[in-house]
């Protein structure tokens, strides 16, 4: 079946090339049927890639090791869920996933816009097919998922890295890839609109939900990565300003700016150049993000492939083409992109949205500069220089504070020109809440971190503004319809999903920022080495090492991993707070150079974090047991088993099990001091809570209004408009 998969890709490649030609030809008047044929080419490509993807998935689920990629990324002992997800854990599998998602969204957008945007769609189709051709080309010529193992299928696969065996690590790539591929849709339509010189708001309206979906998916991907990092890795942080993290953040930032900026074009016909540029930037940055993970051009914990490979060069070429093309098009169409109006007053929603755009672009620039600085500095000075998290924080923190404040102000101002009286009235309560928040946090002793205090104030202001909007909106609805307040609230949100969904997102962002500020600024960390029975103090808590734990995890009768850990008790001021259990898992390795026993202690290791999360603070713990005292007895075991090569396998396995159990028990009976890492971090939970609120708000914002409600509204308004028009035409 690998042959069929490969054939599908070959046919798909031919179809995309045909489609590009047909689309461009079909853009000419009178050649409509070629544009239609190109649209069908997109459907055909989607069908073929889906088929190829299904073939690959089935191969993984069946553990068909004749597929080279299955043999190197899965094994018979991998749990089913992770077998399915292992399909995209490889270079070739992830490229296939990218192509699959792109072809699906392309099909959706072309179906939705059937018959509309007739000047623009052919070019957009060509761009989308162009991306598809690029990725399918890579799959055919550089990284094929359908290579077969020479000499027949091996009996067992290499298996999945144990650090990946976490649900979020399986969904995180899908979320990010969805975000990247969804960004290609508005990009394609922006290019089409520019080429066709149809730069009114229609192309934006048609692709608005795709931009929003891209934003949402990227946000989910980023937050899943942060969450996984926090609960799974022995580090205790959630964000490191690593190049690949930043690569996903960049398009998310420009998408955020875009979502807000398009409203100004819809309402006032302004910021057209901004919207086109932000759309093109988001699409380009999505490709850059895809490229960064697999290029090796930047030192990163995620950059895996050797430098200078074909794929890196191909991506560089693609990025150069889309950058040059985008800039060229915008410059040549700049007369058409002129604003219909000017900003009349600084105290207006469009002025604040514009400032918002500027701040987001500034943040984007800071992140971009910091991420690519090694390459920039090498180009400018000849030596590579790297920037660390403190540099990022220096700029991002004040910009984020400004962003929070602007997000509160913007929705409370009217378009064109807000009256000073109204403005004063609208901001009294939120400002009051902000001042109160600052006072409270100072009283709680946070004065030594002024930036955090300012952030608390800004976010309190933002929450106050959002709360006020909900309150007043529900009140207005109640006045209009006579519904009770809770019902009015719900129906108001249902009828204005875009606005109130957006407000919820702002509220979520406020919670997120507060969580980040508190957990960064007021964290307590300690890395003590403790004997059993010892206590250490951190952040006002006393953590006591009760006893060591040691055990073996088996799966289907095979030894999966060895666990060495600890039970801890946490107290505050003598009162019991919680028990924690943290351990380290030792996975066996297949490395033949290690001894029979030794290979159970020298393979991959994972940390099982002992975490007590709370609304006010998290207590986080990991352990690094000392296995050096066991080395002698392990070496002895290696020698014994090395000499006893003639044992029947069943007996050998049983004896080995006994030996390992013995060693593990020895650790428990005579535990050496272990190194721990304890972190007490306030308000970390607010980060995850804020993330959920953002997700909820984003979904509400995207959700299309129900057909029924629109009809009712339509009828009512048509009646009123009709009466009005009848009155005016008399």
């Amino acid at each position, binding site marked *: 079946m690998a042959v069929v998969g490969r054939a599908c890709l070959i046919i798909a490649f031919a179809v995309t090339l045909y489609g590009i030609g047909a689309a461009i030809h079909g853009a000419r008047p009178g050649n409509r049927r070629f544009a239609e044929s190109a649209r069908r080419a997109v459907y055909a490509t989607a069908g073929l890639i889906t088929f190829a993807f299904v073939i690959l998935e089935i191969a993984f689920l069946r553990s068909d090791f004749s597929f080279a990629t299955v043999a190197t990324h899965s094994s018979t002992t991998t749990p089913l869920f992770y077998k399915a997800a292992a399909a995209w854990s490889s270079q070739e599998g992830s490229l296939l996933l990218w192509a699959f998602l792109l072809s699906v969204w392309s099909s959706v957008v072309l179906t939705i816009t059937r018959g509309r945007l007739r000047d623009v769609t052919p070019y957009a189709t060509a761009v989308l097919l162009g991306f598809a051709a690029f990725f399918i080309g890579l799959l055919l010529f550089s990284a094929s998922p359908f290579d077969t193992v020479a000499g027949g299928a091996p009996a067992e696969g290499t298996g999945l890295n144990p650090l990946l065996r976490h649900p979020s690590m399986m969904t995180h790539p899908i979320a990010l890839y969805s975000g990247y591929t969804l960004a290609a849709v508005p990009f394609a339509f922006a290019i089409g609109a520019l080429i066709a010189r149809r730069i009114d708001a229609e192309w934006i309206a048609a692709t608005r939900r795709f931009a929003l979906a891209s934003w949402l998916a990227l946000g989910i991907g980023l937050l899943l990565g942060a969450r996984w990092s926090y609960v799974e890795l*022995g580090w205790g942080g959630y964000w490191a300003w690593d190049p690949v993290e930043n690569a996903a953040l960049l398009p998310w930032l420009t998408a955020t700016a875009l979502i807000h900026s398009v409203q100004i074009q819809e309402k006032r016909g302004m910021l057209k150049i901004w919207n086109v540029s932000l759309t093109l930037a988001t699409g380009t940055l999505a490709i850059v993000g895809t490229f960064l993970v697999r290029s090796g051009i930047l030192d990163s914990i995620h950059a*895996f492939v050797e430098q200078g490979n074909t794929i890196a060069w191909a991506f560089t070429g693609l990025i150069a083409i889309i950058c040059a093309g985008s800039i060229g098009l915008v410059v040549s169409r700049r007369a058409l992109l002129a604003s219909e109006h000017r900003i009349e007053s600084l105290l207006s929603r469009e002025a604040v949205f514009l400032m918002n755009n500027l701040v987001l672009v500034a943040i984007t620039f800071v992140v971009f500069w910091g991420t690519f600085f090694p390459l920039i500095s090498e180009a400018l000075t000849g030596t590579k220089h790297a920037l660390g998290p403190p540099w990022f924080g220096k700029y991002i923190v004040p910009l984020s504070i400004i962003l929070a404040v602007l997000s509160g102000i913007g929705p409370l101002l009217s378009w064109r020109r807000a009256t000073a009286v109204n403005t004063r009235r609208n901001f009294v309560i939120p400002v009051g809440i902000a001042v109160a928040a600052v006072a409270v946090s100072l009283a709680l002793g946070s004065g030594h971190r002024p930036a955090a205090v300012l952030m608390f104030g800004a976010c309190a202001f933002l929450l106050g503004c959002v709360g006020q909007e909900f309150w007043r909106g529900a009140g207005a609805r109640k006045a209009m319809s006579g519904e009770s307040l809770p019902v009015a609230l719900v129906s108001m949100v249902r009828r204005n999903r875009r606005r109130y969904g957006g407000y919820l997102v702002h509220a979520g962002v406020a919670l997120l920022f507060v969580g980040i500020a508190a957990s960064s600024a007021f964290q307590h960390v300690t890395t003590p080495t403790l004997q059993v029975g010892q206590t250490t103090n951190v952040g006002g808590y006393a953590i006591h090492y009760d006893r060591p734990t040691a055990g073996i995890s088996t799966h289907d009768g095979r030894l999966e991993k060895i666990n060495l850990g600890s039970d801890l008790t946490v107290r505050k001021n003598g009162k019991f707070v919680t028990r924690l259990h943290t351990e380290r898992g030792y996975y066996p390795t297949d490395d033949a150079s290690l001894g029979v026993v030794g290979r159970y202690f020298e393979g991959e290791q994972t940390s099982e974090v002992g975490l007590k999360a709370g609304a006010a603070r998290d207590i986080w713990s990991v352990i690094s047991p000392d296995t050096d005292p066991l080395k002698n007895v392990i070496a002895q075991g290696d020698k014994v088993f090395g000499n006893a090569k003639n044992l029947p396998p069943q007996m050998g396995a049983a004896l080995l099990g006994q030996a390992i159990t013995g060693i593990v028990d020895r650790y428990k009976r005579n535990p050496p001091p272990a190194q721990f890492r304890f972190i007490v971090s306030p308000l970390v939970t607010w980060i995850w809570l804020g993330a959920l609120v953002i997700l909820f708000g984003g979904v509400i914002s995207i959700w299309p209004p129900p057909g029924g409600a629109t009809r009712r509204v339509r009828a009512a308004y048509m009646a009123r408009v009709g009466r009005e028009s009848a009155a005016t035409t008399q």
Partner: protein
Amino acid sequence: MGVALSTAVLLAAALVYTSFSASSEAVRPSQLVSHADPGRSYHLTGKVVDGSIHKAGGTMFFKVRDRDAKSAARAVEIRYTGSVPDPFKDGREVIVDVRKGSGSTFVGAPDSLITKCPSKFSAKKQA
């Protein structure tokens, strides 16, 4: 418009200026062995030399060599305290911020050790 442009220029200037002074040079072990200014911070990338890891109390010692070096001749000795990432072991690729210490040992900045995940394309963060 003018205000926006001038703020942008100011921000860009600030960025450029501080980035050069706040950054640390990214080096390979062979480069560090030949020239290292005491007191300067370096961003070192390389592979852990097999068998070079040993712990003494809360401190860890290990050697780092160039990724494509054949021998450990021009390897750098590091003294490090702080969190050790899960995949850290012999032969793994690491990134760590270091300063020249006494003698030929370099001192790693606490908690700055990053280990690249070994498998070819799969995992994400380890710090």
